[in-house]
């Protein structure tokens, strides 16, 4: 592998686009769905980068492309400066060793007919890491690292709970000592108390190994707690991107604001949300013209239906794709209300 580009950028997306053809038969009528539309991203080594969005946002498709599991329709993914589509066989195997994925569904992410130990060991077998005896030992180590007794190596997935399976999934991802992990909703299917354990585990592992984690989720509480930087996606594009704490303190894009205000708040003393979300996410089959958010946007102008705003930040690290957000970040005021201190109470720890 060649050396990394400056700024320690380990994973990069350039103009990443993915389209799917749906429907279509002898009579014709196939539709093209653009799931991901021209995404540019830079993820730094050791960063926990969250990709947030609702259904239809394209975040899962983006994750798959970053992990090299799905080929983009156009654009490229660059790992350590190299285009992953242009790797030769040896480099590709190396890439597979360094880039791993953890899935959302603990119930179908494990092979039901293989013992846990064999599944954790598989990446080691594939890449021929260590001797068979060393691999067995590593499996035990990995199980312990994720908080499970080594005796589980002989168990089948059906014997494990959801939280345990998710931990096995993490162990499998760690087996080849990766540098980057794409975690696709790894805790969404788990109970709150189990999720806490898994998040703590991921945090420890990240610290120990300086892992880069791309964390795909729709859970804003987790994002706020866990990630360093956040990209908010809507219908295949990034609408806002910034480091976590400043983003939650000062969300600029109208969709981000709508999203944040829609989280049911655990502090019941707070008043009803400032902006009641309106409408539904449009179907990816028929995206609105111009800015795809404009039909639901409380501050939309006529111009918004004409042109798709670019993701810009004017030199600052806070990127927004909205013509109503000025280069200095000044937001268009919401009609009829003073700017709200959204989430400042959360940041200051005023939660019960």
């Amino acid at each position: 592998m060649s050396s990394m580009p400056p700024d320690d950028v380990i994973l990069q997306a350039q103009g990443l686009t993915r389209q799917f053809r749906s429907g279509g038969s002898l009579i014709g009528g196939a539709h093209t769905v653009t799931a991901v539309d021209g995404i540019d991203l830079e993820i730094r080594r050791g960063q926990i980068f969250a990709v947030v969005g609702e259904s239809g946002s394209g975040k899962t498709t983006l994750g798959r492309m970053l992990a090299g599991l799905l080929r983009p329709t156009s654009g490229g993914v660059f790992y350590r400066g190299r285009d992953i589509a242009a790797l030769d066989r040896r480099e590709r195997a190396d890439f597979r060793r360094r880039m791993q994925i953890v899935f959302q569904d603990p119930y179908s992410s494990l092979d039901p007919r293989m013992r846990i130990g064999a599944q954790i060991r598989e990446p080691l077998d594939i890449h021929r890491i260590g001797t068979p005896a060393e691999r067995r030992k590593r499996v035990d180590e990995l199980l312990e690292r994720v908080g499970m007794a080594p005796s589980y190596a002989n168990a089948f997935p059906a014997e494990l709970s959801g939280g345990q399976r998710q931990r096995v999934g993490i162990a499998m991802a760690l087996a080849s000592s990766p540098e980057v992990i794409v975690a696709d909703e790894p805790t969404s299917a788990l109970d709150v108390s189990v999720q806490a354990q898994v998040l703590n585990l991921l945090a420890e592992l990240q610290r120990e190994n300086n892992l880069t984690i791309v964390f795909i989720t729709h859970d804003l509480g987790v994002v706020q707690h866990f990630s360093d930087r956040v990209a908010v996606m809507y219908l295949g594009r990034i609408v806002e991107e910034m480091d976590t704490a400043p983003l939650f303190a000062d969300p600029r894009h109208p969709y981000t604001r709508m999203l944040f205000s829609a989280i049911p708040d655990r502090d019941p003393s707070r008043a009803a949300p400032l902006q009641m979300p309106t409408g539904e996410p449009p179907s990816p089959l028929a995206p609105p013209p111009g800015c795809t958010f404009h039909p639901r946007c409380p501050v939309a102008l006529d111009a918004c239906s004409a042109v798709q705003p670019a993701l810009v930040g004017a030199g600052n690290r806070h990127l927004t794709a909205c013509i109503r957000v000025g280069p200095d970040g000044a937001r268009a005021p919401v009609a009829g209300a003073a700017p709200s201190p959204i989430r400042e109470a959360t940041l200051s720890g005023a939660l019960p």
Partner: protein
Amino acid sequence: MSVAASSRLRTLPKPTPAAIGAAIVLFLAVLALLAPYISPYDSESMDFNAVLSPPSLAHLFGTDNFGRDVLTRALFGLRVSLIAAIGSVAAAMVVGVPLGLMAGYRRGFVDAVIMRPVDVIMAFPAIVLVVALAGVFRQSLGLMTLAIGFVYFPIIVRVMRGAAIEVSDALFVEGARARGASHVRIMARHVLPNAITPVLVQASALMGVAILMEAAISFIGLGVQPPTPSLGLMLSDGRSYMGDAPWLVICPGLGILVAVLGFNLMGDGLPRLLDAANRRRK
């Protein structure tokens, strides 16, 4: 019986259909294997003094029109039937499973290339196909077995492909790819074990069908040639004497029935057995 013993009996597991089926098949296989040792007579020795004699102590199932012992011939005939049944399905599996796996896992071009010829073969009614191949395999049990296998391997491909498609969509397959597993590895270690159950069920059912197919082929005179006995041949020969000597058809008929029953029971119970074996390990 003491309380302890009777309560132990009560807790014995109830025999499942699969177990009963397997037992039947096993029993028949043992009979067929030991045919030369346990049959009371030589399969070809004729006793013209006892032509068409009804079941008696000397001949448990009577004799046929050549004075040959029906039971003996049935036991040897069972050999032929079982070889045809198990051999043909085994051949169908050897060819069909890899093809179905590849078609179902790879999809796209590979799928099309494999499935079109398979579909064509499947379009022919089984009997027609077999008759067409009759010229090749006349006189040879081995070739007849292969021919029957050829007729049925598309079914195996179909079932394997369907199951493989479903399994290939699972997250753990994607995960294996993410970990760098080659396609071959994924197909062999992940897709196959998870998709094989319906194929095995289909295979057991096919064994029953293959026995009937062999019987049908021999019945119309295209199978093994006399004097080699086969259950189907015995049915065919015995047909003319059915009114006067029904035992000529009852014995082989019973053999076919029991064999098909055994295979079907085994096939029906297989899914539960295979899944339980994996889940029960606590």
